[in-house]
């Protein structure tokens, strides 16, 4: 019938042209395409074909927005698009999946997940696409990931492990990229070696023993200190911070108040006499022992520093003791 053949081709062409302009994830453009599809359900077959062709042919970076158009149409319009698009969904989806980068893959996996469920806030309890359609794709994805892991290329890929990090520390073999950040990290790393070597030399005759392990809560709260992030974490100005304890001058700038956790187990669960709460424990890099944070010792008792100061300011006439406490503990640590 020539009468309807023309509009079909025209509608399809309109739709295709709008699709070809779609290069980013743009909500108005995707809505516009969805409206075209919705108002022309009698041409659903032609529109579906245009959409499938576009997803197949367009460049990998434009595939995700086009897939979002597909998603929007099947969720907002539903049949007959779910039928037409469902038929070739496997090849449409997998064809794109193999060509896109990992982030887009992740987005596609999220998309697939929503297709296994009903349209949100819809009365229809059936999934967006029938489960046999989505199941085939899911199985293929598992296989693809497994193959990716299993894939044994003939030549190994040491490049990223070696050539991409050409700047090697001659003391320990660690490598750094030849970037500004790499240079900064290497410098911090070399400072760290210097500080540790100095300290090893200083403490050559010192008795060293293994420390107690940290507990669950401290381990969960612990953040790894590496030989190149010491400056960030211990706030040292001279760059000699260290995981293994550097001269404590590195601590000068830090407004930190900690008290070592008592070795006497019966005292380890002590409460702050002011708020009756327990102390938070963390591992102290320099002292190499667990400490109570936000803590200060005054007259043989340990208080939360903040509690103690608040109590002091409430009285508004600081006792000699609290003044002493501040002066003594603001600078750092009492061991």
């Amino acid at each position, binding site marked *: 019938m020539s009468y309807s053949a023309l509009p079909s081709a025209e509608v399809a062409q309109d739709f295709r042209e709008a699709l070809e302009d779609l290069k980013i994830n743009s909500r108005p453009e995707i809505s516009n395409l969805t409206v075209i599809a919705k108002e022309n359900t009698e041409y659903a077959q032609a529109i579906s074909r245009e959409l499938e062709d576009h997803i197949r042919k367009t460049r990998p970076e434009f595939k995700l927005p086009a897939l979002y158009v597909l998603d929007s149409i099947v969720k907002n319009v539903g049949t007959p698009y779910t039928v037409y698009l469902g038929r070739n969904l496997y090849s449409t989806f997998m064809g794109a999946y193999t060509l896109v980068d*990992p*982030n887009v*893959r*992740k987005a596609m996996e999220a998309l697939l997940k929503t297709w296994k469920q009903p349209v949100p806030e819809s009365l229809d309890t059936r999934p967006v696409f029938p489960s046999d359609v989505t199941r085939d794709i899911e*199985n293929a994805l*598992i296989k693809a*990931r*497994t193959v*990716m*892991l*299993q*894939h*044994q290329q*003939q*030549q*190994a*890929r*040491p490049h*990223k*492990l*070696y050539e991409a990090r050409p700047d*090697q*520390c*001659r003391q*320990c*073999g*660690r*490598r750094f990229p030849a970037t500004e950040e790499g240079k900064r990290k290497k410098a911090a790393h070399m400072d760290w070696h210097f500080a*540790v*070597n100095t*300290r*090893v030399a200083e*403490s050559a005759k*010192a*008795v*060293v*023993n*293994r*420390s*107690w*392990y*940290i*507990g*669950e809560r401290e*381990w*969960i*709260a*612990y953040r*790894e*200190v*590496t*030989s190149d992030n010491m400056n960030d974490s211990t706030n040292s100005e001279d760059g000699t911070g260290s*995981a*293994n304890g550097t001269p404590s001058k590195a601590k000068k700038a830090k407004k930190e108040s900690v008290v070592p956790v008592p*070795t*006497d*187990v*019966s005292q380890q669960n002590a409460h702050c006499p002011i708020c009756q709460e327990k102390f938070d424990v963390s*591992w102290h890099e320099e002292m*190499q022992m667990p400490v109570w944070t936000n803590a200060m010792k005054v007259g043989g008792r340990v208080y939360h520093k903040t509690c103690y100061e608040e109590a002091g300011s409430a009285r508004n006439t600081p006792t000699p003791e609290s003044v002493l406490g501040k002066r003594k503990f603001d600078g750092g640590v009492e061991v």
Partner: protein
Amino acid sequence: MSIPGLQLPGLSFNSTGVDTTAQSSLQSAPSIRTQSLSANTEYRFEVPFARTLRIKLLTGTAELFGSELAPGREYTFTGLKGAIFTYHGCELEIYGAVENDYVGEETEMGVAANAHFALDEMRQVTATNSNAIGPRVLVVGPEDCGKTSLMRILTAYAVKMGRQPTVVNLNPREGLLSVPGSLTATTFADILDVEEVGGWGSSPISGPSAVPIKMPLVYHYACGTPDENKAVYKALITRLALAVTSRFQEDDEVRQAGCFLDTPGSISSGKGGSYEMIQHIVSEFSVNVIVVLGSERLYKDMTRLFSAGTSEGDAPVSVVRLAKSEGCVERDELYMRQLRQAQVRNYFFGVPSAPLSPYTQMVDFSQISIYKIKSTSGNSSSFNPGADDDDDDYDPSSFGVSNIYDKVMPSMMLQNALLAITTASATDSQETIRDSSVLGYMYVAEVDEAKKKLRLLSPVSGRVPGNAVVVGDWPEGIMDLMG
């Protein structure tokens, strides 16, 4: 005190005879020699305990289980079966006594590297998604198929790329940054210490360390195999998973890198068609990658159980089979016992290049609360007169006690035993004691039953904590720890 490893190779032999088989080949004085390796080959060697081998990288690049050697620096190894691999070719200077050394042309490093890059691709994706957790990789396979070696390579590569992977050791047969019988979780953010016993690094010490220290979370199982007390083993897996998952929630860098799970060979045996422990681990840690080393049957079983038909909502599990490395060697019982002893000795005394000084102290029997793990496997007739004696006493605190521990009084049975000092109080429930992490270990150097006193070797000075103490038959008593 003689610490094996301090002796000069070829000059003296320990009269207790650590190594009789190799003596003939070791009699000749070692000489310095140069070993050239072409690209993609590896130098495989074995250094007995009580011997040392020194290796220096002269030219090119070289790595030991994925950790790169610094050029020109001398590395010292003791009690190691290892392989130095080179991607680019290298020249090594070697000094000391080795056994069974040869150059391997067929290496599996390409396989390990590819596995690493595939995992790292998964990590890149999680870096852009604030809730996604990096790959949770379970490594399974029969004993001595290279599971731990593979994990060391994958960990070293991940660290090299700036990641912070967490390594969980579920194999009580040997410790990881701790003693045998322990189960641990450790995040690695900086280079591994290849010279340490086990090759991972050192847990915190009171002085400086030339390689950044590692921070393990330690639980004590006190048995050598999961079968001996399945309930406790499972509970500890749950506990470790809880800690690691909590860390993931709070620490972005650690979350993105995911974790590696090392396992004992016995859980892969599929006895009676059951993979009970593997299923438990997969579910507790939400494992999404299973690496099967070697065994094709195990690979098929894992594929059947985990890669298909995962329940709704669960992430699919990728099951991958990697070939067992050609360089893999069987470790006989003598070697394993020496390795366990070396790990315990290392805990108290450190390594020759960084020795530690433990303390000895006397403790009254009454000062210490000891819980001995029950063996629930098959015949539970482990001969234990010390514990039996106590069973005759009425102990109100043990009324209705669960199937976890027997509370025991110190006796000669504790001679040479390793005591795990938990973070639980002596009066806590047995479940709480089981679920508590470990503060550290003490070694029973002497039991004086007449005076009712123990002489203990302790890593730290000061009063022995009054915490609950856990003990078991594993690791076995160590006779010559005090030299």
